[in-house]
């Protein structure tokens, strides 16, 4: 299940990450999470101190975590992207705070290779929801320029699986795509 929610104007805009954390800590219902994230509107200046950049790979920083949820800030330089992965967390909300991010969904086709079966573009300020359990996906900075997303996971991730983007997880027998000349 995937939802893309409009950033509706509402009273009580949340302007800092600290404020967001305070709200999330008293709101452990999915609807509460969604409401808080929709209200979040943060300027690039307020965001800057939290960002970490690495020219070799995107970065992940934990902003806050409880037993129920964790808030991760993800910074992509131009061209950077996550692996094709899935994890054990049940729910995830993704909100680009800077730049544009592309989301791709994959599934394992018969024969073991990965097949892309959906994609969407997440603009700055939009909120996306993902039922993440066993949902194979990838996020990429759709560029140009940097991108930052704020991801809220409930519950916190405890396992992570990276799939090979060329062939997928399953056996390679019968495929010819692997490396080499």
């Amino acid at each position: 299940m995937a939802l893309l929610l409009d950033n509706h104007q509402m009273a009580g805009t949340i302007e800092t990450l600290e404020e967001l954390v305070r709200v999330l800590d008293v709101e452990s219902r999915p609807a509460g999470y969604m409401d808080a994230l929709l209200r979040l509107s943060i300027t690039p200046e307020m965001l800057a101190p939290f960002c970490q950049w690495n020219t070799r790979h995107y970065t992940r920083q934990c902003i806050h975590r409880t037993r129920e949820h964790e808030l991760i800030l993800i910074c992509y330089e131009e061209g950077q992207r996550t692996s094709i992965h899935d994890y054990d967390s049940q729910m995830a909300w993704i909100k680009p705070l800077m730049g544009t991010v592309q989301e791709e969904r994959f599934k394992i086709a018969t024969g073991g290779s990965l097949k892309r079966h959906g994609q969407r573009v997440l603009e700055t300020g939009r909120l996306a929801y993902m039922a993440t359990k066993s949902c194979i996906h990838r996020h990429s900075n759709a560029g140009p320029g940097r991108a930052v997303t704020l991801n809220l996971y409930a519950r916190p991730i405890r396992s992570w699986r990276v799939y090979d983007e060329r062939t997928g997880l399953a056996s390679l027998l019968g495929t010819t795509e692997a490396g080499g000349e």
Partner: protein
Amino acid sequence: MPQGDTNVNPVHLDRVREMLFASAAEGLVLVDRSGAIRMNNPRLLELFGYAEGELLGRSIELLLPESFRHAHASQREGYNARPAKRHMGRGRELNGLRKDGTIFPVEVGLNHFTVDDELYVMALVTDITERKSAEEALKRNTAELEKRVEERTAELAKGAHAVEIAYEREKELHALKSRFVSMASHEFRTPLSTIMGSADLIARYTEGPGNEKVHKHVQRIRTKVRDLTAILNDFLSFERIGQGDISTEPEEIDIIHLCIGLIEELRGMAKAGQALKYEHTSDTRTVVLDRNMLVNTITNLVTNAIKYSPEGSPVTLRTAMDDGCLRIVVIDKGIGIPVTDQPQLFDPFFRAQNVLTIQGTGLGLHLVKRYLDLMGGEINYTSTPGQGSTFNVRIPGKHYRT
């Protein structure tokens, strides 16, 4: 005292004396106060090369080399004035003069007695030519030996100095090498990182069908850049540990977060079809450790698992906090470690027989061991050639030694 002694026949005793005189191994000569030879035994004649009776009445100085004669005559007078039983020429070399003019070394014992108020001096002359030459040889040998000891000592001193110089030089070279390795590694890393960034961008800009060849080559660039970066990192770490240039800064680390980040970074090294799986299996997820050492440890183990596994073969990283210790397990289904290579597995630059065609410095596991030593951790593994390896690491989370 046995009584029998007094009953010996006096005539018989005279014959014994005669025999002793005649058969003595030393030369015997009897001289009167004037220095004239009054009696001698056959051995003396033999020593000096004279015939029977030839010496009787002649001066004792006849048997001395020319240069000693004058001094001898006056010494003899001194002796006559205060005769005593003694060795002659104590502290000096004594020589005899043969009739044929040859000179030979002698030892002379002197004794005196008086018969009818007449003083006689008896000299016992021993030819010490052989002893002398043995002594000479010994002296020569000793001198030779001393000379050799001296030479050897000088050589050793020279050697020690050379070793000192070589050691200093070695130290300088080592420092130079370290500086070079550090500098080169740092200087190479920045352009490599730029190459990698550009390769990633090329890949992104050429996505879609029809660009398979571009992607293949971009992938090769990425792989090689990663290999090179890993080599440089190994060298840098090895140098730093070797120099003791490692500072430990324990900090609270979220293990899951750290491992997901590492898995995401290391995915670029994975072979086609190789899935990387990470799971944390305990409720506690934080540990106090040096981040850099922990990152290096996990990175090296996962990198090895990827490198020594075939395409399509999964690699699993598992972590847990257990009784205050961080446990890390890295499992692969790769080529395994030959049993004969297992004892040297953690030695620096060691490479197992079955990985010689796979790129690597042989430093990875050595570095892991060194980091674990610094963190007070331990590592063990099980491996079956052809089936894979499992590495188990245990690091105490709080206790720390630098």
